[in-house]
């Protein structure tokens, strides 16, 4: 069955759980720093190492950020709620329980609207809660970096205790074949919303935003099917691919008369499919109970109102404004948004590019390149400043379109800023009229018959000679200038 055929037979239900690592200066329950990439175990203390006797103290900034995320997702904010302990043994979790929230989340009942193919879909938000991150385990000595064959396991607790916000959608039925795109659009929208709040850098490639995707299939009119939970979905593209591959995989099983097992699966970046993780047969009983070391969270209504008043412009409102500024259609704007390019284009314009130029590079050459490399646009290898510099070189006539593409290729390959790539690759529009005149004269001399036609008034034939000149100058000439010079030399203009 093709994907389209599957979706005429089955209806998918999709749900997403997204973890956002907050960008607070200090950890959730202690004063340790949260800088990314510090030396292992240098950002730790008795609290986040869970030394005997140490106690947690809540980070107010993390609560504020969670409330703001809740408000931005149209949630109700709890007047009173508690943290809970989620008990399970894991070596990179110092306390062997995660301080999280269970049946009393801080934010509930919200929604996010996303537009795909010109149609709006409402994704219900079930809950937004605050919890802490774990450390990271590194298995060394083996060939694969995995636990099998490793001689030692090392744990870095720098990440342990960094505040995490978990955003859980309601199960979303009725999306049909667009389910993968809508799931991706939701995550992109969520990312834009959180980024606009300035509470996280929401970089999926660095793990500061992580997604678990729940997928199930059912026949029309029947109950929802058994869902699987796909983890390790670490880019916008992967969200879409994970949903699609799970739909295809489950449909094949169901069509064979098989059963879907409730299990955790892992998305494989390389193959684009999902693989079974540990089966949930030995389902962990987390033994949740209210965290006795912390007092309940009871945000004062005035504080919540203050946080609400301080919310920034909504990404959807912002997009409407930018659409006006950039002078593009709603459909074009939506594809910009779904490609995760709004901020990139905005920053490129802020760095001095024209709107049209910025959009052209990001949605054209760079989007194509990101697709080839199978990465998010933001991770393609070019920065807004570099794209703006490129466009400025084009505007100044130093690069033509073709050369600019080559320069961009160099930028993406890590060869430096556009000016550096231009210099090192020797790519510049030839403006030296002496050299150009020589090339034109040579072309005329080499093609006397064509030259004659042009002199006779068949100006359309000039194209062939322009092409010849461009060839000898290796594309570095400005085609219009070549044409003007050619006509002038032949006495036609």
């Amino acid at each position: 069955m093709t994907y389209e055929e599957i979706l005429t037979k089955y209806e998918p239900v999709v749900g997403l759980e997204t973890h956002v690592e907050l960008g607070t200066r200090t950890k959730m329950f202690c004063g340790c720093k949260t800088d990314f990439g510090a030396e292992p175990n240098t950002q730790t203390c008795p609290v986040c190492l869970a030394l005997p006797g140490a106690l947690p103290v809540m980070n107010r900034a993390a609560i504020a950020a969670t409330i703001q995320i809740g408000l931005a997702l149209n949630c109700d904010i709890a007047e009173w709620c508690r943290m809970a302990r989620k008990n399970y043994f894991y070596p990179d979790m110092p306390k062997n329980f995660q301080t999280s929230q269970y049946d009393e989340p801080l934010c509930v009942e919200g929604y996010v609207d996303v537009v795909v193919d010109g149609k709006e879909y409402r994704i219900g938000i079930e809950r937004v809660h605050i919890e802490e991150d774990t450390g990271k385990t590194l298995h060394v000595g083996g060939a694969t970096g995995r636990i099998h064959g490793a001689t030692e396991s090392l744990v870095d607790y720098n990440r342990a205790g960094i505040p995490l916000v978990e955003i859980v959608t309601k199960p979303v039925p009725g999306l049909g074949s667009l389910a993968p795109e809508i799931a991706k659009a939701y995550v992109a929208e969520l990312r834009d919303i959180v980024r606009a709040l300035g509470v996280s850098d929401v970089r999926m490639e660095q793990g500061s935003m992580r997604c678990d995707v729940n997928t199930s299939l059912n026949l029309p009119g029947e109950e929802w099917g058994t869902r699987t939970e796909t983890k390790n979905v670490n880019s916008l593209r992967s969200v879409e691919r994970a949903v699609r591959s799970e739909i295809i995989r489950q449909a094949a099983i169901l069509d064979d008369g098989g059963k879907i097992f409730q299990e955790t699966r892992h998305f494989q970046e390389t193959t684009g499919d999902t693989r079974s993780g540990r089966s949930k047969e030995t389902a962990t009983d987390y033994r949740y109970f209210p965290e006795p070391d912390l007092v309940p969270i009871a945000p004062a209504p005035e504080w919540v109102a203050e946080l609400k008043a301080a919310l920034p412009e909504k990404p959807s409102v912002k997009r409407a404004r930018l659409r006006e500024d950039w002078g593009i259609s709603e459909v074009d704007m939506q594809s910009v948004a779904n490609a995760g390019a709004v901020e990139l284009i905005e920053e490129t314009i802020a760095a001095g590019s024209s709107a049209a130029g910025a959009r052209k590079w990001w949605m054209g050459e760079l989007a194509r390149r990101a697709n080839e490399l199978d990465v998010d646009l933001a991770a393609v290898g070019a920065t807004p400043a570099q794209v703006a510099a490129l466009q400025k070189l084009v505007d100044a006539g130093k690069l033509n379109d073709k050369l600019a593409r080559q320069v961009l290729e160099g930028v993406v390959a890590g060869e430096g800023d556009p000016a550096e790539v231009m210099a090192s690759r020797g790519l510049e529009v030839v403006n030296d009229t002496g050299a150009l005149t020589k090339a034109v004269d040579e072309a005329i001399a080499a093609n006397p018959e064509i030259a004659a036609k042009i002199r006779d008034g068949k100006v359309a034939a000039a194209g062939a000679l322009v092409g010849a000149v461009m060839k000898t100058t290796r594309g570095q000439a400005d085609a219009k200038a070549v044409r003007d010079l050619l006509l002038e030399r032949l006495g036609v203009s």
Partner: protein
Amino acid sequence: MTDLTRLSAASLAAKIASKEVSAVEVTTAHLDRIAAVDPRVHAFLHVDREGALDAARKVDAGEITGPLAGVPIAVKDVVTTKGVPTTAASKILEGWKPPYDATIVERLKKAGMPILGKTNMDEFAMGSSTEYSAYGATNNPWDLGRIPGGSGGGSAAALAAYEAPLAIGTDTGGSIRQPGAVTGTVGAKPTYGGTSRYGLIAFSSSLDTPGPCGRTVEDTALLHSVMAGYDPRDSTSINQPVPDVIKAAQLGKNGDLSGVKLGVVKEFAGDGSEPGVLSAFKDSLEALVKLGAEIVEVSCPNFQYALPAYYLIAPSEASSNLARFDGVRYGLREGDNGSHSLEEVMSLTREGGFGPEVKRRIIIGTYALSSGYYDAYYGQAQKVRTLITRDFQSAFEQVDVLVSPTTPFVAFPFGSRTSDPYQMYLADLFTIPTNLYGGPAISVPCGLSEGLPVGFQIMAPTMADDRMYRVAAALESAVGSFTPPEL
């Protein structure tokens, strides 16, 4: 020359302040006493001679002054002391030296109190006899064949054996008061949140309360004042001024209790208490009436459910609190020889590192929190806790304090209650309700039964710790103190 170890903390502090004796002399006297008698008492798991003398020298150099400057103290081994072994009397923490001081230890140090060492206890404070210490029991100085109470038997025995004039204890279900009662010493459990838990190795977070232990009510109040008070590192710490317990103790010492209403809990009357305990309790009530107090019988109908509720809440929290002892970061690690998986190493470490009572409570707690059982056990126990709190609140509308024997029986012989956990748990029958409520309570010696000390418990409303000190000091002045036989 006076035996410095026989003096109260208050008089030692006065002598040190007036330079009549030096802090080093006082500390040395106690260290020598420990060397002489602790092989028989076994109150200490670790003695920090050099650390204690260093602290004493600072006081003698005039670097620190204060109401207890230079007065040495023993600290229960469940409280972290920087660089000094802290094991909670468990094999799983053998040799662990904390890199940080508990808040209360910081306060002792700031007050210039030399820390003599760490005292023995039931492993992770789970027990009523110190028989569950992984390092051997402590012997009661009144009769070396009997238990010193628990979990804080080491701290109480150190006081009774004159090895220390003051000690730190922790009270989750009676671990300060019951040892105080059976060793003829004073032990106070402050209001929950009145003393910081930061650095106290958690047994049951919602119940654990560090508190002062002394030989006199006044000494205990002095230590209470030094160690109590708000700590921003403990979220459950109360940000209010510490009740003036010193003034209250002095007031009580005058022996006037006119207008004070004492509530006798109807449900505790005769409930499994030994006759000798009951008669000492009744004699004490009469003594208090003579001082002007009024006795009122009050009913606390839900106290009968306190013991079962406690034995669900405390083990539930313990099962989670003790999860961190897995051999990954500190303490014992077993099976790490290349032939076991990480999970197996964790499991072998816990199997080998925890003693029988700790394992029993981890299993009970794990079960009580399991899905499908949570509502029936942990959830139900929390409801009982609320009802017990209401019993206290309505009782305190009628009376100023509640009184009872501290524990139903005097110090029992070793081994007499270890075969049946329930018989051991009964030791805390009268002390547990206070922990569930969160209020303060104190045990003060009130008489002897068959030559062994009996404790009198006074329970007060939350943040009214001063009330119990007043009554305790009055009772002490009426009945006098009780001295154990020479060791």
